[in-house]
Structures are given as C-alpha cells and as structure tokens.
C-alpha cells in the first residue's frame, strides 16, 4: 500500500507541475461555460434595473405593478417618486416607470396613463416600453370587462375590476410554473454548460494523465518499475488512484468556481458526491481502457480526443439532448455522458436528491465496470 500511495502522490505531483494542466483543468471549462452559457441565454438573470413609482395605489395600479414585476428580464424596484429621481441621477436604475394618479380613469378614456422617463440613448428603452404597453394592453381587457361587468352586476367599477384581477392572480401562478418548470429545456444557460463542460474537461484531463502514463511506459519507466519489487497491481492501483483524486480535485474546483463566478446552484451535496464519484470511476475506466488498447501517446491522444468529443456531442454535453432527433436520442443511451447529464439536470434544475438519480447512477456504474475491466485486464506493460 505504501508503494501504491508513493506512485499515486508522485503522479499527482507530476500532473500539477505542468502549467498546461491548469488550462485544461480549469481555464478551458470555465471559458467554454461562459461562452456557451451566454449563447444559450442566461438563467443567472442579467437584468435591467428600473424604478417603479405607483402614485395611485388602487386595484388597477397594483395590478399593473404585479404584472410588470413578473418579467424576468427587467427588474423593477418599487420606490417613491423622490427616491426614483435620486436613483436615476445616481445611475442605480436605468429609467423610471411612473403610474400617475387617476390611472384607471385615463385608461378608461384611452389616454396615456403611464409615464416612462429615461436618459437619452438608453438602449433598453424600447424593451421597457414594449413591456409596459403589453401589460397595459392586457389590463385594458380587464378594464373593459369591468365596465361591462359593473353595468350587469350593478357594482362599483373598482370592485368588479378587483374581483377580475384576483382571478387572474391564480392564473398567473400557473404561468409562472410553466415558464420555469420542465416544459421544453429544463436547464439552460450557465448551469447546463457548467455541468456539461465540467464533464468534458474532466475527461480531457484524464486524457492528459493517461497520456503521461503512456509516455512513461514508452520511455521504459514501466519496464524499470518491474525490475524493482513492485507488482503490476500496485502500479495500476497507484495510477488509478491518482486519476481519481485529480478528477475529484478538478470537479470540486469547477463546482466552487462556477458557483462563485456564474451563480450556478449545483443542488444536493449528497447527490453530487455520489454522482461525481460514479462518473469519475467511469471516466478513469475509459482512460485506462484507451491506454490499454493503444501503443503510443500519439495514438492515445488522437483516439481519445475523437472518442471524447463525439460522445460528448451525442451525450448532450454541448446542447440539451431534447433538441436532437429521436434516433440520436436512442443512440445517446449508449453514451455515459447522457446519463451523467440527466443526473446533473435532476440535481440542478429539479432540486433532486440521491434517490432521484439512482437509475443514471446504476447505468454509469455499469459503464465503469466495463471500462475498468477492459483497462485492467488488457493493459500493456512494456
């Protein structure tokens, strides 16, 4: 065991000595996460700050406020008229939306009821205008309904409007669930890219490390090892352990950095522990299997890169697998990344727990056993 640990620590030290290791380990995955994450749209809410002033404070105006607040792109801060002006002057907000007194009256008469104040050249102004108009348009429907309703029910316009808009509140809860729920792409943006590129570059890192193994073997270091009182199992286990530990270090750092930099929430720690451990067994196994089948470091690099890139594509590492044709989705079942991404999605987007990812874990474990047995049984020693 002492020799296993010596070999393991030596390999880890050797890995961290290379500067290029850090690029593959951390630099590339974070860069790709950033690029792809923003390409797919963000779930970390890059929002525009707008001050919202409600001078009227009636059912109608509050309804408008409520509707405006639903928007994910623009974030409204409800403030007094005075505070709003100050915030704009201090550049804390990009504009002011003012719901003026007598808004219900004006709406009924078809007069402009909302004032939008913004500095010249504000790039998001059209976006805000459009949103406000949209809200007013739908409010208008309620306003008309309230006018008609108050005639029938012989009740106050305000009261009818209040009833109608309360109803809508329930509907809105439903819409809210839809937009952030599991319809379409469950996990987009930075979270998805973080998980995907962590997997990909953990695999790339494994390729670098098994490359170092093959170079050592080619240089005659393995032959020399076997002239010392060291067994094959000690050597293999030492390497295996070093791969596994470096993989964990990499995953750990990527999780910490993506949380800090991109605000990714990785979900249940227990689930992550289980998932990453199993995934790493699988990845280390794949690395060893490739190393056992090739002779030279060049072969290993070429074959390894091809295998990793293509299976990552198939396995939905770059884009959600729901975007590809059915046949591709079927093929994807034979790729470990598919299952890893499924488990990550469960943990990250659906707040899943250990119990929710047992199926993908079992499949990954199966892959790990196959890869490891190929790697360990067919390993070339000289």
């Amino acid at each position, binding site marked *: 065991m002492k020799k296993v640990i010596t070999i393991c620590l*030596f390999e880890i030290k050797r890995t961290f000595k290379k500067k290029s290791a850090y690029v593959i380990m951390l630099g590339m995955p974070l860069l790709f996460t950033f690029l792809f994450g923003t390409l797919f749209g963000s779930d970390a809410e890059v929002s525009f700050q707008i001050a919202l002033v409600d001078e009227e404070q009636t059912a109608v105006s509050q309804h408008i406020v409520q509707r405006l607040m639903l928007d994910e792109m623009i974030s409204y801060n409800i403030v007094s008229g005075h505070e709003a002006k100050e915030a704009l002057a201090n550049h804390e907000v990009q504009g002011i939306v003012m719901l003026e007194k007598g808004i219900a009256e004006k709406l009924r008469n078809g007069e402009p009821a909302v004032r939008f104040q913004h500095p010249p050249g504000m790039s998001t102004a059209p976006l805000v205008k459009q949103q406000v108009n949209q809200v007013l348009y739908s409010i208008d429907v309620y306003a008309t309904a309230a006018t008609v309703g108050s005639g029938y029910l012989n009740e106050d316009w305000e009261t009818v409007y209040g009833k109608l808009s309360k109803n809508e509140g329930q509907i809105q809860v439903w819409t809210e669930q839809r937009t952030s729920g599991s319809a379409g792409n469950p996990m987009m943006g930075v979270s998805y890219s973080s998980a995907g590129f962590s997997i990909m570059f953990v695999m790339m890192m494994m390729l670098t490390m098994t490359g170092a193994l093959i170079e050592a073997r080619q240089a005659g270091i393995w032959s*020399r090892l076997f002239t010392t*009182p*060291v067994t094959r199992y000690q050597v293999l286990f030492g390497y295996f352990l070093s791969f596994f530990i470096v993989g964990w270090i990499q995953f750990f750092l990527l999780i910490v950095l993506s949380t800090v930099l991109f605000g990714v929430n990785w979900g249940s720690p227990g689930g992550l522990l289980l998932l990453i451990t199993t995934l790493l067994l699988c990845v280390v196994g794949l690395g060893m299997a490739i190393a056992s089948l090739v002779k030279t470091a060049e072969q290993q690099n070429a074959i390894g890169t091809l295998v990793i890139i293509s299976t990552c594509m198939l396995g939905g590492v770059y884009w959600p697998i729901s975007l590809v044709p059915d046949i591709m989705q079927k093929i994807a079942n034979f790729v470990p990344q598919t299952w890893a991404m499924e488990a990550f999605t469960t943990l990250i987007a659906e707040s899943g727990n250990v119990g929710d990812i047992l199926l993908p874990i079992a499949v990954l474990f199966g892959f790990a056993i196959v890869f490891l047995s190929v790697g360990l049984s067919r390993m070339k020693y000289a």
Partner: protein
Amino acid sequence: MLTLSNVKKSFDSREIIKGVSLQIERGESFGLLGPNGAGKSTLISMICGLIPYGAGEIRIDGKVVGKQLKEIKQIIGVVPQDIALYPSMSAMDNLLFWGKMYGLSGKAAKIRAQEVLEIVGLADRAKGRIETFSGGMKRRINIGAALMHRPQLLIMDEPTVGIDPQSRNHILETVKSLNEQGMTVIYTSHYMEEVEYLCKRIAIIDEGKLIASGTKKDLSNRLAGGTVLKLTVDSLHPLFIEELKTLNSVEKVIVKPGEEIDVHLHSKMEMVAEVILLASRSGIHIHNMQLQEANLETLFLQLTGRTLRE
C-alpha cells in the same frame, strides 16, 4: 552470484538467445561485449525477470529467477539501456521515487539520495529537472536510481551510449570504485575499451550465442594470429612469401595490392626480428613496417569476420 545454464529465448519463433551458459562470482565485474542486436538487452531482461526465458535456468544468489522474483529484485539494481526517468521531475524527486519503489522509507530515501548524488557527482544539481540535463548527466542519474537500495548485483545495459567523454570517464570510474567496494557488476557494452578497462572477465556475444568468454588473459591467448605485422616492400618475391609461411611464429600471410603484406603472428615482438632477418637474407627491402596489436576487437573480427561496430 549469478548462474545461467543453457538459457534460450525466441520471439515469434525466431530464436534470439541460442543457449547461453555463464557463471558470475560474487564481487566480480563481468563484461558482456557484443554488437547491436546481439541479444544483450534480451539476456538482461531475462536475468532481471522482465521477460520469461524460454528454456534453461537462471539463478541469482541461489534463487531461481521467475520463482523467487521478489527476493531477487531486492538485491539487484538494474540500469536500463534507455533513460528511464521522469523528465519533468527533479533529480532528487526521481531518486526518491526509485528509492521508495525499492522499499526505502521516506527518511532513508532522502539520506541515501544525497549519498547517491555524491557518488554520481551531481550533488549540486539535486533540484534540477532531468529534462534540463545533458545526456551524460541523465545517464548518471539513471545509474544513481539503481544504487538507491545498495544492490548486491548491479546490472548495467550500455550505460554510456551517446554521451561526452568526460561523463563517460566519470561513469567508468564510478562503476570501478563501486566494484572495488564489493558490488558485483555486470556491464554490457559494444565498446570494447570500456569492457577491457572495467572487467576482469568478459564474454563476447554475437547473434544470441557466447562466442568466447574468460579472463582478459584467456581471451588474448585465444588470439591466434591476432597480432598483425603490416609490411610494405619493394618487390613481392614469391620465394620470400613461401619462406615467411614456414616460420614458426607465423599464422598466415596475406598479400595485398601495392606491395603490401599482412603477416599474422602467433605472439608478438620476439617474432618480428625473425621476419626482418628473413627479408634482408632474401634481398627484400622493407619500406614501411607497422605492428598492429591484438585486442577484443580483433578477436571479434577473427571469430565472426565482422567488426563490433558496423
């Protein structure tokens, strides 16, 4: 210390080692001389248990290689033909690693690594990375790694290939002093000067067979006609040639174009006078005369018809 009895080895049904027997005593320095491809490395791989031997038996310290490998590996130190070190790591790191592989504790390895660096003369480069070293320095650390556990038997496979003369001399001195301190040494080379300098006993291997072995003296006695007297004369008189051949000390006479005669002699100096005497009696004028003494190179040439390095 080491016994090989009729050891054979084939790769892909091609016999590479064709029945080698030899015995090396404790404390000896033994040279294995042979051209590239003779089978030296293959033989060494079998001795240290890297590849199984096809037939025969190899024993080290009474233990059979292949059966009691663990005990054997503990007492042998192998210096491979290739530089088997981690290039991106320092000399010290490499030595510590190999020391620990031989079972040294961390502390013992540190102390020994310092000693080994002194032995190979690189104590001031302990922290230098191997990839920044010259060929000769790499070779010296390559040897150092095999000394970490103070082996009883040091097996070296062409440890001086491709290095500068100073490093080469340093290595030869080092090995010689290790042997004088009691370490048994097997030294493989295709440089006959190295083997002649270092080793008391020598075996010459060619195409998987030992074609000669013994002490340096044994071998030079086998050099029948190894000494060559090269003559350039004014005329090639047939009678003179015939009379040369009848001389006791002459093994054979080869006549070459340009009035040149190679006279192969059994032994040297005393016999040269006889040749000169004969020449003057025959009225032959000697323009030029050159005595080429025998060495292992000539022995190899004589035994195989080829030179060691071709």
